[in-house]
């Protein structure tokens, strides 16, 4: 019997997907369905904003940025 589940389809890089999987391991409160390829998964609609914020913060910290020279 087929079922329909409400959610938000997330499309992202494999690296970002790995991070989301890691978040979900804590309390299993993000993922509705892991779609088993490197780039897609379905998450709960209510968690979307939260996830975006958390990802933004974490990636800002972790991703190296080339030094921006302010010299003219």
């Amino acid at each position: 019997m087929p079922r329909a589940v409400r959610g938000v389809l997330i499309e992202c890089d494999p690296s970002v997907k790995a991070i989301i999987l890691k978040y979900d391991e804590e309390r299993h409160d993000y993922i509705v369905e892991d779609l088993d390829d490197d780039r897609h998964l379905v998450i709960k609609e209510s968690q979307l904003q939260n996830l975006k914020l958390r990802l933004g913060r974490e990636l800002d910290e972790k991703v190296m940025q080339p030094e921006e020279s302010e010299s003219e």
Partner: protein
Amino acid sequence: MAAAPSRPFDYLESLPGTVFFKLYQQPSTALAIFRRMLPDLAKCFVMALLYLKDPIPAVDLEIWVKSESLKERDSALSILGRLHILSNTTTADNVRAYMVTNPFAASLRQALTGAEQTQSFGVLSRTSDEGSTSIGSLDEYARRQWEGVLGYMVGTSGLGIQRDANLSKGVKQLLQAGHLVEIRDRRVEITQDGFAFVLQDVGTQVWHILILYVESAEAIGMDSVEVLSFIFLLSSLELGKSYEKRHLTSNQLRTLTDLADFGIVYQSSPEAGQFYPTRLATTLTSDSSALSNPISGTLSGPGGGSNQPGSGFIIIETNYRLYAYTSSPLQISLIALFTTLKYRFPNLVTGKITRQSIRRAIEMGITADQIISYLATHAHPQMRKHNVSRSTSNQTGIPPSVLPPTVVDQIRLWQLERDRVKATAGFLFKDFVSLAEYEAPCRYAEEIGVLIWKSDRKRMFFVTRHEQVAAFLRNRK
């Protein structure tokens, strides 16, 4: 330019037929719609049918147009239909026919040939008490008020630049109600819509504001139809002439005062006996509007300097440095939205587009495309000249840009950095027993254009809307 798909047209189209019936009672409205909203072919049709007493059979009208222009004919007829100007009827012997609808036909005839004393086109003021106001000073007034509105939106006051236009509370509320600005922590912040707004040409901006005004009119207890037809009246007035206020209704007087805040009309004081339309009003429904008029010249160009339309003032180098030859506080604060400004000289500001400055802009809701289009529209003639020589080496079908490709790409990349995930809300269909059971609804979802993602192996697919797919599944049982 007439009848290019435009905001006023979209707005009018959304109104119910009864509103049109009331609007078309006024000859000034009928004339304004006729000259601004209709493509040339539609005007021909209206003129030809205007004095006919009986409907004209559709076939007769259709043979006027050569067969290679069927597309133009259909679009003209459809526009006329959507504006409730032309109606489909039948002749006495039951043939499909067209007819110009009545309040419109009567009003347009009246507008063209004149009639007994009407106030539809305003009443010229005979008594000039304060010595007539010159066109030059009207332009100056309109420019100052309008630049004040735009300046308020982009926050020129934050740069410590004095503002000489004083905006009323009504103006600020209207901008907020239209989601062009938001108040956060008691500071004015421009929204994404607002940024798109300030980058448009003046004519489009004025219409945008007027439509917001009409939409909000009901809320403050005015009849929106009355306001709208008053706007059309204003658009048919003559620049440099003053008009009597005696004949206006109280709602019209109120509208007049509100529009004076935007610089659309001028009155020496709210109690004055007459008012002047400014160029912002008189160009509303004429074709000769935006580009050639001195207001948009000074607004979009460097302040006061060269009035040549379309002359840009921004130079960007491949190393992300930006030089803007302008002294206009408005332009400077626009540029400051997405640039780290460094130095300011009397006629020049310099700065650099950096990752931080772009991210700051994107966090405010401005998109990379808006920034790029702004930069491209205002690129200095030197950049265009420079680019003509290079554009022969046009790679991968991207149209040659006046901006350095590295900068354009990098601005887009910086935006992408913010959006690492693409999220689509919808429904996941799963637990299909067999591949056959999975395939049919999946194909159906693809056909109706709701399918986003599917996996044959896992027998799952993701759609944006589930109702039709669910119905499809039920019907197959």
